């Protein structure tokens, strides 16, 4: 009679720490790799292609410099956002853990993380373009990588603050917060499906956080404190229950800070 039980096992069998480690190994390695690379770049900016020449001569952005900025943003976004995607990636990995026979679980989990990184790569492309343009227009310091013009900082802060109140932010945040809801309603099979789902999750994350990422232009793009603060905030906003209140309070603070910067900018004439 107990023969029927042989092949039907629950989580304690399929989701053993060893199995989960195997499935999550690749995304974890990617995350740690990104952190290390980011650390190297922050430690020595000349490791970023084109960066030294850009700091010396900010006028006239060339392709190498743009690619350097793109690389910098991609690594930074991966470092900051992969940890926030952990609940979703782990939930997906749990579903793959059951597909023991094909053994391609780890590839699908990697594809999911890859799709997510691709989405933030697209964001990085735009952000690099913005940074390059603002640097060329002397609105941004090539050395500190932050806005030199106070009113611009003010605008960025106010936009980020207002966005915290908008319906689009709420919708995107909701999608990010419940892995089960996302995976049950947007499931796609196989490795390609995993890539597609990771990409979609990434798009929701961008929808949620793009304005907060803009704050990097205010704190200084490669400023470690700013990076940690923004990434930390995004993570807390995602996992904290009662998120709406929290997001709105932060929105108010950002708007106030922005108005102060705008006011200061006009008063001081910067």
């Amino acid at each position: 009679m107990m023969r029927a039980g042989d092949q039907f096992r629950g989580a304690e069998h399929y989701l053993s720490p060893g199995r989960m480690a195997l499935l999550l190994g690749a995304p974890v390695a990617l995350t740690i790799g990104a952190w290390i690379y980011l650390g190297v770049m922050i430690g020595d900016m000349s490791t970023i292609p084109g960066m030294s020449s850009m700091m010396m001569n900010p006028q006239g952005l060339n392709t190498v410099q743009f690619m350097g900025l793109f690389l910098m943003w991609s690594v930074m976004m991966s470092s900051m956002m992969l940890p926030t995607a952990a609940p979703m990636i782990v939930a997906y990995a749990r579903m793959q853990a059951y597909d023991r026979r094909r053994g391609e679980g780890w590839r699908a989990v990697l594809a999911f993380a890859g799709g997510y990184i691709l989405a933030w790569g697209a964001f990085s492309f735009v952000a690099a373009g913005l940074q390059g343009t603002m640097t060329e227009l002397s609105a941004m310091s090539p050395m500190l990588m932050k806005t030199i013009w106070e009113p611009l900082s003010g605008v960025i802060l106010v936009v980020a603050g207002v966005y915290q109140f908008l319906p689009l932010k709420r919708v995107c945040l909701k999608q990010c917060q419940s892995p089960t809801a996302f995976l049950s309603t947007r499931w796609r099979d196989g490795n390609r499906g995993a890539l597609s789902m990771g990409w979609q999750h990434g798009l929701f994350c961008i929808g949620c956080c793009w304005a907060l990422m803009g704050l990097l232009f205010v704190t200084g793009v490669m400023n470690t404190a700013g990076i940690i603060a923004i990434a930390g905030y995004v993570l807390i906003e995602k996992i904290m229950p009662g998120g709406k209140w929290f997001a709105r309070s932060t929105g108010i603070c950002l708007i106030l800070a922005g108005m102060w910067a705008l006011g200061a900018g006009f008063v001081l004439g910067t």
Partner: protein
Amino acid sequence: MTWSLKGTYFESCNCEVACPCLFLSPPSTGECEALVGWHIEQGSDDDVSLDGLNVALAVRSPGHMATTPWTVAVYVDERADEAQNASLMKIFGGQGGGHPARLASHIGEILGARKVPIEFTVDGGRHALKIPGIAAVEIETSSGQGDGPITISGHPLCIAPGFPATVATSTHLSYTDHGFAWDLSEKTAVFSPFAYQGDA
């Protein structure tokens, strides 16, 4: 490996009609107690025929179904021979991929799997399942507008994706096994056809 299952299924649970868990809301009483039954009309796993077999699961989730692991007891039709039994265990245990694998990923603990006689009857909207000494469930369609059925479709927590679920109410749900003793009536139930296949 290619397998496919088609048939009819129903679930009868302890929540008020209609079950909030389907919409990823918390269960009515804070925990879920459900009996789910599948009748396979047409099924095969490579060259093993699974036609006509029944499977039932007793599911308990001590909290929100999306976030709390489920405790499950498995019942497989005693008419299944060894090969059929192995196929059903593989598929419903989530090892065959497809939608059952997604459902199985919620399972935290298996209390046991038994080979038992499962009597599954469908009479219009009335669905009944009987496992002598263990379970007796009967559900009836709830009346909607114009005395027609009430349906839910597109719900996130879905046992049988691709088919609208007809809303029903249990006449009775009694289950005694593995230390549980459920005795409910007039609670939520849904039924629909189902179709699962292994991911190619």
